[in-house]
């Protein structure tokens, strides 16, 4: 449209002829109006995806890696679960944590567990985190045109004993990170992680060595996100991976 030669009347004429009466929508905001993303047939037909939201944070340390995630699952404005674990153990030295659609996350995690078992049987050893990182990337890209609606962080101890985090998008683009955040609160969590942990702009590139400080930070980040993101809340699940194996603990956070 040419705004310079714009006159109200010209536009009026043009549109008046093909004017149609649009139906009046009842816009009272009630939950069932917000469920349309999955149940209604969109322009291109059935939409199989739904975002169940939730936030997960992973931070690599010198000899450990820590995951802090909330346990809320929601659809629209409804809470489906208050105690869902979005973090799955793959090996004694590796976990995966994801945001996105629960059905896809569970399927992907199960598939990876199966792939790890197959690997162990076939090669008579446990896959390294690096191997699993590549495997996950290929698995996701294998579904390039009907992806798993899952945004993953693969966390583990590498062969040198260092903590490592691998971040992915839904179709398998991935990179090695020192920390990562996925899910509905990722925009809120990323800045504080950038500030507190080793980023590209840092001169001193040493990973944090005190697990309790990192744990407090991770816990605080999820608590802070729960303050402002409506999809994050209920509980924070802390998963710590180090040379002794995997520890999991949960603490309540705000439930509203």
């Amino acid at each position, binding site marked *: 449209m040419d705004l310079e030669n714009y006159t109200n009347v010209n536009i009026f004429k043009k549109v008046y002829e093909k004017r149609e009466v649009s139906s009046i929508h009842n816009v009272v905001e009630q939950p069932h109006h917000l469920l349309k993303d999955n149940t209604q047939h969109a322009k291109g037909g059935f939409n199989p995806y739904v975002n169940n939201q939730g936030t997960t944070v992973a931070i690599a340390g010198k000899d450990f890696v820590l995951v802090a995630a909330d346990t809320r699952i929601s659809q629209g404005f409804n809470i489906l679960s208050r105690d869902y674990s979005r973090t799955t153990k793959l090996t004694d030295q590796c976990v995966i944590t994801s945001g996105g659609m629960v059905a896809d996350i569970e399927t992907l995690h199960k598939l990876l567990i199966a792939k790890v078992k197959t*690997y162990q049987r076939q*090669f*008579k*050893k446990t896959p390294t985190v690096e*191997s699993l990182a590549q*495997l996950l990337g*290929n698995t996701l890209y294998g579904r390039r045109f009907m992806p798993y609606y899952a945004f993953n962080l693969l966390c583990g101890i590498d062969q040198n004993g260092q903590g490592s985090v691998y971040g992915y998008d839904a179709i398998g683009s991935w990179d090695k990170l020192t920390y990562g955040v996925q899910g509905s609160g990722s925009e809120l969590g990323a800045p504080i992680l950038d500030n507190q942990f080793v980023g590209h702009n840092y001169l001193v590139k040493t990973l944090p060595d005190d697990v309790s400080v990192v744990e407090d930070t991770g816990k605080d980040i999820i608590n802070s996100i729960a303050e402002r993101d409506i999809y994050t809340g209920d509980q924070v699940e802390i998963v710590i991976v180090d040379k002794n194996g995997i520890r999991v603990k949960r603490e309540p956070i705000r439930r509203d």
Partner: protein
Amino acid sequence: MWMGSKEHYDRGVNTFSPEGRIYQIEYAIEAIKFGSTAIGIRTNEGVVLGVEKKLPSKLMEPAKSEKLVEIDRHCGCAMSGIVGDARILVDHARVEAQNHRFNYAEAMSIEQITEAVSDLAINFGEGYEGTKRKPMARPYGVALLIAGVDDNGPQLYQTDPSGTFLQWQARAIGSGGDTAMTYIKESYHSNMTLAEAEKLVMQTLKSVMEEKIQSDNVEISIVRTDTKRLETRTQEYVNNIISTLA
């Protein structure tokens, strides 16, 4: 009764004889004994592979690396028997090794490479219904020495047409195989250096070869434990060893 008559059980490659033998596999193993000699020795410093290259005519160009080939950066293979059959197995092993790197971002273990080769080696006969690729109609008439370095250190494996694979500290196959094994058994010890092993390979080859040993009718490769890389020795290097042989 015609039971026990060998010929009747030679028709199908997958038919057992009443004594519980599959003659075609045994014949295939026999075929290896006509092959040129190939030797492998494992030491703590690395693995050595050596082969004899037969030159039936003076007019023939000495081919480079025909019987001593690379499977992956960390793994080499020496062969004895029908070289054409070996190429199919080696191609398969190379694909498997690259697939492993693609899937898992790591080198495939030598045992796994050997297993992959053996899986293909026993997959002969009529094949299954619905299988796209038609398998070999007969057993592969070749034995391979697969050597390399992985997470478990230097490794040496041998495959045969039956799909069996065994791990060895030192192994010789081919026409001079039995003689060579006796020879190596006398000199081999587990604390050998790589240089000593190279010399032992050459010395053994010299003793079993019908022709005079020369830099153009033998070839050796090594995989070092520290670098985990396959290296092919140059003709000068081989010449230097030959000059020191007894």
